[in-house]
């Protein structure tokens, strides 16, 4: 008698299985993280309690979570669209920074324009900045068949250095006494906030509307139909006379543009000036990959996953101060969750069958 383990491809993945697998992968992630925490001498229950309270347990915490979910949503919804076409833009971090540079640059250049004109201009510029940054891997992919993963990733570090160059160099504010910051934005270059919170609501509204728009685009329009067909089976797309190149260009440029908007939101809504790249975006572009993947590339679900990951970031800040843990601790969550999402995707597409053979 022997036990045979067979792995079979599962034909249909129901919606319940999908959502169940998301929840299960989160649950398992938290179990594994708890083990890691215990090993490193951190009481996991205590840490989780602090994260929960810090991120979601108070109005202040919630408002912070919402504020942090804004860039995650903008970048994450764009990435969901891009990944849906099987175009792996992993350079959203760089596109966020380019958005911050161009949007922030417009704010610095014309500080005296009326707010109603300046802010839209900044957003427009930021969108174009992020979109152009994403256009580079897009053109390299469509023209030369260069894989977009590596090029978009390399461009993240180029963008970081570009920001550093600017804030250490030509854009450094006169009043900054040697610190790498630009001059503060004029009031008309700053986004309004909801009450005393840091929720820059215009960006939030834009993010929610765009997420909805992406959902509609993807599931109700001809272009979205082409994106899904090309992502699922490029051969069928070509067979039906679709332009695969057009789809690649479109999703990269749009996801880059959305990330660019996130960059504008951060500098005009949170910092009110340009600073070092890790200050503008502490890895939002990478966390957005988790946001998109955790939502199973469903743009509407990114609203939930962005809020969840935003809360986790705020909770991470909370354990940092309360338990005196380093800021990098939160990366453990990112890493483990990401591993479990891809493992769950494998397990929902495949079924492990254990048979007893006599």
């Amino acid at each position, binding site marked *: 008698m022997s036990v045979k383990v067979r792995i079979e491809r599962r034909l249909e993945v129901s919606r319940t299985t999908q959502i169940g697998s998301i929840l299960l992968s989160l649950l398992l992630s938290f179990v594994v993280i708890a083990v*890691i*925490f215990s090993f*490193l001498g*951190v009481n996991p229950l205590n840490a989780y309690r602090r994260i929960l309270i810090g991120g979601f347990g108070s109005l202040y915490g919630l408002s912070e979570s919402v504020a942090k979910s804004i860039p995650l949503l903008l970048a994450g919804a764009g990435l969901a669209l891009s990944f849906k076409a099987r175009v*792996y833009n*992993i350079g959203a971090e760089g596109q966020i920074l380019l958005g911050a540079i161009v949007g922030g640059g417009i704010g610095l250049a014309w500080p005296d324009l009326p707010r109603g004109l300046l802010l839209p201009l900044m957003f427009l510029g930021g969108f174009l900045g992020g979109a152009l940054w994403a256009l*580079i891997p897009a053109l*390299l992919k469509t023209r*030369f*068949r*260069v*894989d977009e*993963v*590596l*090029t978009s*990733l*390399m*461009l993240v*570090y*180029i963008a970081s*250095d*570009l920001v*550093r*160059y600017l804030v*250490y*160099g030509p854009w450094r504010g006169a009043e900054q006494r040697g610190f790498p910051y630009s001059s503060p934005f004029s009031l008309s270059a700053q986004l309004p906030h909801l009450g005393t919170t840091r929720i820059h609501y215009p960006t939030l509204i834009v993010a929610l509307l765009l997420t909805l728009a992406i959902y509609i685009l993807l599931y109700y329009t001809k272009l979205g139909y082409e994106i899904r067909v090309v992502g699922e089976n490029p051969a069928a797309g070509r067979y039906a006379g679709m332009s695969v190149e057009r789809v690649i260009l479109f999703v990269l440029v749009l996801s880059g543009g959305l990330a660019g908007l996130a960059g504008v939101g951060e500098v005009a809504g949170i910092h009110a000036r340009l600073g070092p790249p890790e200050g503008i975006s502490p890895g939002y572009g*990478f966390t957005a*990959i988790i946001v998109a*993947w955790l939502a199973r590339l469903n743009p509407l679900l990114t609203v939930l996953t962005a809020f969840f990951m935003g809360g986790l970031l705020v909770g991470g800040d909370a354990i940092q101060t309360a338990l*005196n*843990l*380093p*800021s*990098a*601790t*939160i*990366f*453990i*969550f*990112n*890493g*483990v969750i*990401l*591993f479990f999402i*891809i*493992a769950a*995707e*494998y397990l929902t597409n495949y079924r492990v069958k254990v048979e007893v053979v006599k």
Partner: protein
Amino acid sequence: MIDFIVSVLTLTIPAGTALLLGTLGEVYAERSGVLNLGVEGMMIMGAVTGFAVTFATKNVVLGILAASLAGILMSLIHAYFSITLRVNQVVSGLALTMLGLGISGLLGKQFIGMPLPVRLQPVHVPVLSDLPILGEFFRFNILVYISILLVPLLSFFLYKTNWGIVLRSVGENPAAADAMGVNVFLVRYLAVMFGGLMAGLAGAFLSVAYAPAWIEGMTAGAGWIVIALTIFSLYDPTRAMLGAYLFGGVRVLQFRLQPLGIPANLLNMLPFLVTILVLVLISEQAFRRRIGVPAALMQPYSREEK
């Protein structure tokens, strides 16, 4: 002038050593067909483990060995996900980097600002280190020499041994290797583990020799430069050395060139800009073939599904 050149070069070699160690490992991993974007994470785990064990045992060798082991353990996660589960290698590698950054931060918290009781001492090569001017080049620590020695060794292994042929074949055409009875999975596991070992060593070099200290996030993107260098070197150990010292040199020079009006931060972009250029270059099929870009890079292998 000679003094200036020698001083730049003697600074360049240590500055490029971590890059060299990491790149040599990643060259092997990618030669087997597995892209591991987790170098940064493996490296920083090597750094923190190396520091912690050296700190606790007051033994640098133990620290370095532990760092290598940490790198291997990290790489096994990626190997399992990308080779056995055949998931997207890019995502798995990113997750590994995040994990490494997170765990190392937590693990290293207690060591921040701590001085290391022992450190890796420079080895004075007898006679040679007494030479005028050139003597400077024979007073590095042992890891520097090891990294340099590994270059011809790994080149030889890659091109002149039966195992090297097997490794390259697995990365080029796993089906061909499989048909000849090669265990593709085993070869890929070993290559990825070697990449982890080298990244761990690179991390230890930073924390017990170069710095020597533990600073949160001290790899500071070196892992990503390794990814870039691997492409830049076109998967070749000798060119990896060239590239590592080139970009190590850029880091040394950036502060010296600033007065000449060349901003350091723009120089920093260089590795990544060059890498994109190289990527465009090797997109040409004829060129790929001549150079030997692993044709099956990022492609999981499975026998039954055609």
